[in-house]
């Protein structure tokens, strides 16, 4: 092992330890009150580690930087492979930008200590989840990023935020439970004691619980990715959360589900048992979500909610692509998916900051910000020359069938429509009366916007996908250009139609099918009331006495010779 690797291991640990230590330091009140100034700096060690590791991997010196403790053969540890390190890096970048953005908001907030604490906890989990190598650490960091986020959503303490938080937590806990069960099954199917994700997933093929494990993994990650029909938390949570928290939630936290799919599904070998069924299931679920997100999004009136539905739609597309990768055993699938996820992370993070900038900072000329936001939005739909074009190209080899290609193009058209709707809402949004802390809000926005435009291209060689020039040339070839442009034009046309006749669409409340949850809530209340009535009965002396005798009789009946 070279000294470079050792140094990088240390740097990686430092990158994860910094936010954790900062969170612990927040237990002291004076530190907690002042920590907000450093939110932009705390992710930087992780960013540095990611950059150096990606460089090392791209030089071909190592395949991945590993750090493993091996108590009792459990193989607890970290691994920064290509996908993990790249995601870690861009996530750290967004965290830093959002941390800077949050500064002016926190400076004036009496609750900043609390917000900072949850911010740092989420940060720890969010960075960790990309580089944890074993089931236990993955579960820990995944739980941290899933659950600590609730403190960010609940920050504003409105009735709506409370509702959003409880819904989010309920679904997050269900996801946790599905994953816990899946991990128990995974660990058990592995013949050794090792909890290493790679080796347990490799042993999954021979597991007697293959189908149930796969189902649970898909449920767990679908809840995080917000696939239909468990997407309901996403619009509510994003609408309720403050801007930097939304950027984090949509940009980074959701990607925990992507890394989960990448790490836990046998993408390089294909599904061992049941063959293409798993891929098909994920594909159908994903495509449904992709179109459903658009359909619901265009009925929304609030820019952040529209962005949330766009995230739902985009995660659907990623899930569909993963399903295809699972089916086709495409060797570069992991890198391609990573690229797409990276672009979405940057673009969506930037867009949420953009909404914030428009509503909180820009009192003067609005069009530079608006133009950039529109560019980023159309980039998500695959506008040539933007980072999104590279991301769309990355999905091409996966959607390599005629029908699927068309569906992918249509989903691009849908994205274009949705993002134009978003841009229109952004244009109409009210100007802030005063511009407060404008510089510290505008700086991260512009940094993220440029990163979203450029970084996907520069990451191409680092992900081992070839030179940017070749990709650029490929994307500008006439046929490819037409393939990229016609969905956009279709989207523009649809957006014009929406602007003209959109008022006839029904207004769907954020969280759409959530209205169907009312009977479930009534049922829960009825169960609670029934349990209470039963409790009153059981706590009668005579009833309890008779129960005691009954239990004795039943026990006797069980053991009687």
């Amino acid at each position, binding site marked *: 092992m070279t000294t470079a690797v050792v140094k990088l291991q240390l740097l990686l640990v430092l990158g994860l330890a910094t936010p954790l230590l900062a969170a612990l330091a927040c237990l002291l009140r004076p530190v907690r009150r002042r920590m907000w100034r450093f939110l932009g700096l705390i992710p930087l060690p992780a960013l540095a580690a990611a950059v150096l590791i990606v460089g090392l991997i791209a030089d071909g010196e190592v395949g991945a930087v590993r750090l493993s403790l091996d108590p009792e053969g459990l193989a607890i540890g970290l691994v920064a492979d290509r996908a993990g390190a790249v995601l870690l890096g861009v996530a750290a970048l967004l965290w830093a930008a959002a941390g800077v953005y949050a500064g002016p908001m926190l400076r004036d907030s009496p609750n900043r200590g609390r917000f900072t604490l949850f911010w740092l906890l989420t940060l720890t989990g969010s960075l960790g989840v990309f580089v944890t190598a074993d089931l236990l650490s993955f579960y820990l960091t995944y739980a941290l990023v899933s659950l600590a986020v609730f403190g960010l959503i609940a920050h504003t303490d409105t009735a709506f935020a409370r509702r959003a938080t409880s819904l989010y937590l309920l679904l997050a806990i269900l996801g946790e439970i599905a994953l816990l069960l899946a991990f128990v099954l995974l660990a058990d199917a592995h013949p050794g004691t090792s909890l290493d994700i790679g080796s347990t997933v490799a042993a999954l093929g021979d597991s007697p619980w293959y189908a149930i494990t796969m189902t649970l993994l898909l449920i767990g990650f679908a809840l995080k990715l917000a696939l239909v029909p468990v997407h309901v938390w996403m619009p509510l949570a994003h609408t309720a959360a403050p801007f930097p928290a939304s950027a984090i939630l949509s940009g980074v936290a959701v990607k925990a589900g992507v890394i989960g799919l990448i790490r836990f599904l046998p993408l390089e070998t294909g599904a061992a048992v049941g063959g293409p069924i798993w891929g098909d299931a994920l594909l159908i679920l994903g495509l449904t979500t992709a179109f459903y997100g658009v359909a619901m999004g265009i009925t929304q009136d609030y820019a952040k909610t529209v962005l949330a539905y766009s995230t739902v739609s985009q995660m659907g597309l990623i899930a569909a692509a993963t399903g295809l990768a699972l089916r086709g055993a495409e060797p570069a699938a992991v890198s391609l998916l990573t690229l797409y996820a990276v672009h979405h992370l940057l673009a969506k993070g930037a867009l949420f900051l953009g909404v914030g900038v428009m509503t909180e900072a820009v009192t003067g000329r609005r069009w530079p910000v608006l133009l950039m936001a529109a560019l980023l939005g159309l980039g998500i739909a695959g506008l040539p020359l933007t980072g999104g074009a590279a991301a769309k190209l990355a999905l091409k080899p996966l959607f390599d069938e005629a029908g699927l290609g068309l569906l992918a193009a249509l989903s691009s058209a849908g994205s274009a429509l949705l993002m134009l709707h978003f841009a229109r809402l952004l244009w109409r949004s009210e100007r802030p009366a005063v511009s407060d802390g404008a510089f510290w809000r505008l700086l991260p926005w512009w940094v993220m916007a440029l990163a979203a435009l450029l970084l996907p291209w520069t990451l191409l060689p680092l992900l081992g996908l070839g030179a940017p020039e070749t990709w650029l040339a490929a994307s500008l070839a006439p046929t490819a250009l037409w393939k990229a442009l016609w969905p956009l034009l279709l989207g523009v046309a649809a957006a014009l139609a929406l602007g003209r006749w959109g008022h006839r669409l029904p207004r769907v409340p954020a969280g759409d099918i959530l209205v169907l949850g009312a009977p479930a809530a009534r049922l829960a209340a009825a169960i609670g009331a029934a349990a209470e009535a039963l409790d009153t009965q059981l706590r*009668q*002396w005579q009833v309890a*006495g008779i129960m005691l005798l009954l239990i004795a009789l039943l026990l006797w009946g069980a053991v009687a010779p």
Partner: protein
Amino acid sequence: MSQITLYGLLGSALVGLGLYGLIVSADALRKLLAFNLLGSGVFLLFGVIARRGAGAGFSGDPIPQALVITGLVVAFAATALAVGLLVRLGETAGLEDVDDAPASPRSAAPEDAPGSAGGPQ
């Protein structure tokens, strides 16, 4: 019927009566009395066992007797504690007779205890 069987039956009957009283009585004092009845039944059974298990030469097995004595002390302590609580409860709440459940109107007179078994306390 041998003496042992008689005592055994008697002990069992006391246990049964005690259990019945303890479970159906609403009144705390009655429960306490029923508990003592139940305890006496168990002690009687200890006596039966001492008698039955008597080894050669002894008139009875001494260990159960020791256990009964200890048990009596424990039961006495329990009764004392319960009576203490009852008295305190009567004083603080100013009640004549005391129920161990949160107060609610008693539907039946104490004399009808078995009849009020199913009623709310």
